[in-house]
């Protein structure tokens, strides 16, 4: 018979994945007060780079491609999870270098700059990899399904949700439990304080932007086997990221995580009872929450509004 528990479990895993997608976006908007509209494209780029590393051998000189392809898939997968974010993070630094010209001006310019960057990245992806889509190969250990509660469950999905939880935890530790975190939290509001603590504000911004974009790429790698890889997959990522941040409240770490879980739950549950509403449910949730709490669940009066 129809039981609810599988849908709750599914909602939870989905929620963690959504929170992961929103994580890098949240960091940049929360700390730097910049909306990174390229988040989705960087997410997609992460997935593509991972595909380049895990898919058919690359045309690299003197057998490097073959050597790489000869490594076990599991090892390559772990390495891809490190390399792809690093490459994308470098691009993030490049974007930040452009963005710094807009600091102090209307924050709109930062948003528009990343919008332009998103368009460029998406078209670069399209011209390099073409429009066809790809499936990211995964190691046997985390693919296939297993049986529980008399149902078949996807192993990868649980792996992905676990990885999402790990990334969320690491980000939290970074912000709350390190000196670096304390400084970046101060940096958003008090540049003098940052200097007083002996940090260079410019470098700090680079670091935050790089971490934010690396998280976007990591989310892309993790989501790729579930969503498939295609040029406009970024749009699928940036929109939930947006809604989750608005829902959770700008600048609130746990707000974003809880909003992600809520969205996952709502989608999971509506899928059980009214499948055609499942994507719409997240928008309805947003409208309901914003109606009663216009700054989102955990949003404080932000200096973004000043």
């Amino acid at each position: 018979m129809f039981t609810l528990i599988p849908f709750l479990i599914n909602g939870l895993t989905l929620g963690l994945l959504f929170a992961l997608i929103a994580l890098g976006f949240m960091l940049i908007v929360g700390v730097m007060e910049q909306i990174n509209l390229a988040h989705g494209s960087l997410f997609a780029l992460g997935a593509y780079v991972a595909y380049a590393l895990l898919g058919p051998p690359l045309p690299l000189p003197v057998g490097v491609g073959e050597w790489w392809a000869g490594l076990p898939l599991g090892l390559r997968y772990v390495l891809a999870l490190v390399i792809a974010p690093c490459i994308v993070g470098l691009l993030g630094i490049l974007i930040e270098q452009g963005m710094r010209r807009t600091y102090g001006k209307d924050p709109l310019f930062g948003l528009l700059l990343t919008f332009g960057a998103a368009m460029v990245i998406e078209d670069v992806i399209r011209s390099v990899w073409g429009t066809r889509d790809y499936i990211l190969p995964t190691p046997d250990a985390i693919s296939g399904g297993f049986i529980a509660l008399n149902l078949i469950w996807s192993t990868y999905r649980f792996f992905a949700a676990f990885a999402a939880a790990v990334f969320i935890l690491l980000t939290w530790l970074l912000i709350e439990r390190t000196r670096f975190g304390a400084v970046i939290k101060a940096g958003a509001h008090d540049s003098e304080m940052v200097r007083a603590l002996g940090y260079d504000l410019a470098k700090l911004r680079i670091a935050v932007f790089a971490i934010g974009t690396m998280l976007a790429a990591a989310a892309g790698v993790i989501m790729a086997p579930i969503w498939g890889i295609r040029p406009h997959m970024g749009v699928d990522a940036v929109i939930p990221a947006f809604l989750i941040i608005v829902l959770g409240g700008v600048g609130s770490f746990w707000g974003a995580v809880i909003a992600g879980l809520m969205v996952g739950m709502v989608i999971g549950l509506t899928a059980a009872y009214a499948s055609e509403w499942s994507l719409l449910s997240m928008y309805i949730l947003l409208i309901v929450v914003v109606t009663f709490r216009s700054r989102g669940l955990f949003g404080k009066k932000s200096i973004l509004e000043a």
Partner: protein
Amino acid sequence: MQTPAHAGRLITPAMVGVALVLLTVPLWIAKVGLYQYIGVEILIWAIYALGFNLLLGTAGLPSFGHGAFFGIGAYAFGLTQFHVAANLWVCLLGGILAASLAGALVAGFVARRRGIYFAFLTIAFGQVFWFIAMKARNVTGGEDGLLPIARLPADFGIVSFDLTGNTALYFFVLALFLVTVVALWRLTYSPFGRVLSAIRQSELRAAHLGYQVVLFKMLAFIASAAFAGLAGSLFAMAQGGAFPEVMALHYSGYIVMMVLVGGGLVSFWGPVIGVVVFLLARDLLGAVTLTWMLWFGLLFVAVILFKPEGIAGVFQDLRRRFSRQPAQAQPAARSTP
């Protein structure tokens, strides 16, 4: 945006010049390798962009979800045609009203917000409307669009113009474009528009001067949504259908892009310049390369980084440079009213 010369006039020399040029377009557009339909689309987007700039350039409110109102106008035009009356004026009114109402609804949520947070919420609401348009298949036709929307005749009682041809539609849209230009010029430089501009420059001061800032923002938002609705209605008529894509985040971004590249922040005419450049680039580059967005995106990034005042800003710089010599003979204050 500084107050330009002729701000106090209803019709300025620039308007007359633009009108004259646009009136001759059907005579030469095919000769320069373009086609009538692109002219129609440029004018429609120009109406949209000018209305949008009331919000962005004058009131300083960066709406990133304005495609919603454009789309709502298009759907409302079609739905009015199917279910209320197949009369052009009724349908246009339907499009404008629906967009204004949606604008009022969103304005209620966003008018208290500023800067990035404002952009944030408008994006979220834009997505909501876009998604509804995609989902409400019974009303909007969903993904496939609302079809077929007829190009209704422009009935003036004694005389009725058939608009099914692109040239006829061009002249009709041109007439509405000119009305929009006059109306928005007047609005921008009216007491209302000046207060909006003041709010952009210092919301704090405006509030302490006794202006109810939220009310003004809401009205600006609604007015701009109304123009988007008008443009959307015309777009539905031009395309013979209403489609959800124009409501998506990308298209909402494009309108910001057009207004900014053209120089909407520094000039009333900036949005029009931006629309012409964007749509022609899409058409001409799009014929040559499938990755035209790459090149336009790079151009856009360059504009943001190096010349946020856009193309109109470049013109203004050039004019200032050329007028420097004579300026010594004249008092410098000539540029302001």
